[in-house]
């Protein structure tokens, strides 16, 4: 359920009230920035996706209809924008295979000590296809069938990408552990 203030903010933004729109942005931007960072390799890319997401969010706000959680709706919308960006980029720089994986940056840490930033770094270092599928399946909770439909790929391809993403992540974590010990 939406809190009263949240509802007022959305209604204000719907009326075109600039202050309400700004407050809505301030409330949800950090959460959506977190989503964008997971889907993008760099901070600049994440910022672009966040900007596009909010532009789209305000355009689509009349369609929200106060059904369900606004955060969930905004998150889904942001994921869709991130996917569109990824699909546009996919034709520009096709990247796959373990040989293209670069070493994750930052100081090595043992598995148990991996914090949010380290986990985010690991995800961001994944090849684009792996990163998107891993995000959609492991974090957003979409099924392979849904992912296949969203990305226009076979269900089996989604499974395969997920397995490869996991393998890469495991390999990276093990490598970090060895260096740390």
């Amino acid at each position: 359920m939406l809190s009263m203030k949240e509802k007022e903010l959305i209604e204000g933004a719907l009326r075109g009230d600039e202050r309400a729109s700004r407050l809505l942005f301030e409330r949800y931007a950090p959460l959506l920035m977190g989503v964008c960072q997971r889907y993008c390799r760099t901070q600049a890319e994440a910022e672009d996706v966040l900007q596009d997401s909010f532009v789209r969010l305000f355009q689509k706000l009349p369609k929200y209809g106060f059904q369900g959680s606004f955060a969930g709706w905004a998150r889904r919308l942001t994921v869709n924008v991130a996917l569109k960006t990824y699909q546009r980029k996919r034709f520009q720089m096709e990247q796959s295979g373990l040989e293209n994986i670069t070493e994750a940056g930052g100081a090595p840490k043992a598995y148990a000590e991996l914090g949010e930033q380290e986990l985010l770094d690991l995800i961001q270092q994944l090849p684009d296809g792996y990163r998107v599928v891993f995000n959609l399946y492991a974090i957003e909770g979409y099924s392979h069938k849904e992912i296949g439909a969203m990305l226009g790929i076979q269900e089996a391809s989604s499974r395969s990408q997920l397995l490869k993403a996991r393998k890469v992540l495991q390999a990276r974590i093990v490598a970090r552990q060895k260096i740390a010990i």
Partner: protein
Amino acid sequence: MKHIDDLFRDGLSGRKGDVPADLWAKIQAARPAVPAGEALDQKFSDALRDREAPVPIGMWGRIVAARALPRKRALYALASLALLLLMGGFLYLNQGQAPVTPAATAPAVAQVDPARDLQLATTERTSTSEAVGIDQGALSERPAPSANATAARNTSNNLARNAGAESSGTQTLPGAPVGMSASEAATPPPTLMNERNTAVTSPLPSIVNFLPVTTTLPKERKQKFRLQPTKGTSFSRAPRHRSQTEMLFGGAYANQVLTASTPEDRALLSARENSEFPEVSYQITLRQSYRFTDRIVLRGGLTYVDVRNQLDYEEIVDNELVFTSRNNHLRMLEVPVLAGLTIPGKRLSVSINAGPVFNLTTAVQGSYLDPDTPEPIDLRESGNYRTYTGVGYMTSLTTTYAIGKKEPFVLVLEPFFKHYPGSFTRPGARIQESYWLAGLQLGIRKGL
């Protein structure tokens, strides 16, 4: 040898080595195997699903600007459409007006010749009477009289009743004001002259009027008059007609192209690209056009250009984040020299122009964001901008429309495109800045 062995055994056998303090922690951390499958997913999901990240400063400004962009585009498109519709409507409404050329006015003068009017009226009357007396159908079959002829027929009827049809054209009608000639009195109201397909029934009680004659006037044939180029021994055009002055004012979209000089300057490039947005730029032009032939024109003059950009950023004022917008200006004085190829028309003419634009002086006003400094940097004080930006190129499509008859008032509509290939910043500057402009000028033209 045995002594040496004993020495080391006694000295070191019971020695305790230094154990690193975090060794146990490391062993403990390394103990659990790296999870696989769903467990690994869970690990990432737990940590990152609801993770919030700091939002970069200026993001709201970027969003506001990005949201405003389609609205501005729609506004410009609507304005252009409205302008086109206005122009179209204006041209359509002016289509019916008589041509301005002397050739077009000559026949009108001939029609008010009294003698000719009278002669025409007599002929008309005779033929009408014959038609009445001989064959009713023949009347309808013969060519329909023109509006002037019908008017003249009315005149002749009046004259026949009052003074006789054979009298001279200077005959004054009783009903007409004193001093007015027969033809002047007979001239029908202007509406009759201009109406097409108008049913004209004579109000006079002549024999013709007893017949159910309803004459449909023929469609006025549109005549095209165009001044022929002077040939041979005909009079040459006076030089003063070759030169015309144009005063133009218009808005433009100025596209800013920023380039980082080195990879280290990318942060600055990104900051500027994300904080500066194009506003409506404008320019005022006073120029002279000189016509060499009917088709070749040279245009030159002076143009003042104001390239405007909006700088959006957030600053902290009294511990509060305040969104600030400022305008940056790049003001230029330049000399366009354009060669034009004209497609002449009666009232509407089109000319395609192209040529260089020589910059005389450039001045900057405003500021830009630099990630290395907390405050925006003044454009002028940065010392990066040139006062002379070299040569640009311009192309335009001048459309003119003449309004009025004797000394026509010429409206000018000119879409244009300008490109400044040279950078507005000095060679050593961290960011190279260049522009292209696309806009629309409106103005007037006057012959000297």
